[in-house]
């Protein structure tokens, strides 16, 4: 695996000098939040965090992130409800939402997409492909929407 190890470092080294994409991570598990935050920050992203669904929505309205990583099983308000609510807000309707969840039963992926998510990353995340999956969603947005 040694060859692929530094791929993300190289990516971010070039792209992050002038503009730092802001990513909101909504996740209630302490360790999982630390893990995702660590990877994203090491790759040059600015990370904001929220520990439950309602806090996630408030934070999203406040900071207008470029991408939202959303756990599904959350206290107060689950991820499906968060995604549906975010999609009703005009200034947040186009922000890509990626579900990061350990729900892996049949139909779970479809349910997140139906709730308004753009992508789905299954837990446990694969650290060797995680950034690629995240950046793919950011790129789609950069291609489709107008600026950040």
């Amino acid at each position, binding site marked *: *695996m040694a060859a692929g*190890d*530094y791929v*993300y*470092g190289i990516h971010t080294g070039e792209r992050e000098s002038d503009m730092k994409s802001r990513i909101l991570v909504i996740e209630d*598990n302490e*360790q*999982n939040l630390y*893990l*995702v935050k*660590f*990877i994203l920050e*090491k790759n040059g992203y600015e990370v904001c965090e929220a520990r439950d669904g309602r806090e996630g929505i408030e934070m999203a309205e406040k900071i207008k992130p470029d991408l939202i990583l959303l756990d599904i*099983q959350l206290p107060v308000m689950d991820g499906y409800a968060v995604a549906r609510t975010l999609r009703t807000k005009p200034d947040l309707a186009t922000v890509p939402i990626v579900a990061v969840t*350990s*729900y*892996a*039963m*049949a*139909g779970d992926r*479809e349910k997140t997409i139906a709730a308004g998510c753009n992508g789905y990353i299954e*837990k*446990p*995340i*694969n*650290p*060797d492909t995680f950034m690629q999956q995240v950046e793919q969603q950011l790129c789609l947005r950069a291609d489709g929407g107008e600026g950040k």
Partner: protein
Amino acid sequence: MLMALLIFAAQAALIAALFFNLVRRRRTERVLMVKEQELQKHRDHLEALVEERTQQLRMSNMEMMQAKEHAEAADQMKSAFLATMSHELRTPLNSIIGFTGILLQGLVGPLNDEQRKQLQMVRTSANHLLALISDILDISEIEAGKLQISRENFDLRAAIDKIVQTCRPLTEKKGLRLEVAIAPEVGELYSDARRVEQIILNLLSNAVKFTDAGSINISCVAADGNYIIRVADTGIGVKKENIDEMFKPFRQIDTGINRMYEGTGLGLSICKKLLELMGGDIRVESEWQRGTTFTVSIPAKGSQT
């Protein structure tokens, strides 16, 4: 005088006869009454018996209904339990696999060789544990009839290439030749990408697992609207009497050296069920100590059902 005596005698005889007759009839009547009473007793008893049996039947019917309800509730609880369990087990695994991965990437700082080696062992074990959890979840969903097959167009050639890349380090480590032959006509497949990859990966890693010398060959051709994928190895093979056992869950065939090969023994039964759901099939030919060939057929445009 004589006449009068005679008449009296006759009358007496008649009265006696009548009397005896009466006594006999009384006796018969008494016997009849006793019999009648006995009969009534039997009749009553029979009625009670029928009533009792009906009651018993009603009870056992109710018990059966209750048992059925219990079984259904238990089945639902089992499904809910599995869903929760799967979620609960994956959450700590996310940390284990995630942190091991970023340590190995050097994101945290440089590692020495021994640290790298040990972390790789942690990663291998964690991935193995994850595979076991996924297998158990799959087989439970299949048995509950809840597993759904999604359908989308995807590039079968790219999928096979990707899996071959995943397996190549293992074959190189064991000194096996890994030959790939994908016919030029192999392209798009309309099926469940994730499940098709799961099947191919399972067959290929089985081949690597059970082969110690020689080669593994994977090929793919198109024929009659189907894609035919063949995975052949020169491994330990399977005895004729065990071939039917291979696709049954939890049957890792006793290879003589018990449990030498790790795994749940669920992989092939999952593959078979998945292929049935996709409208395809899987066949196996094997010769003990010579090798095994699996042939998978998948409808290129999805199943008709």
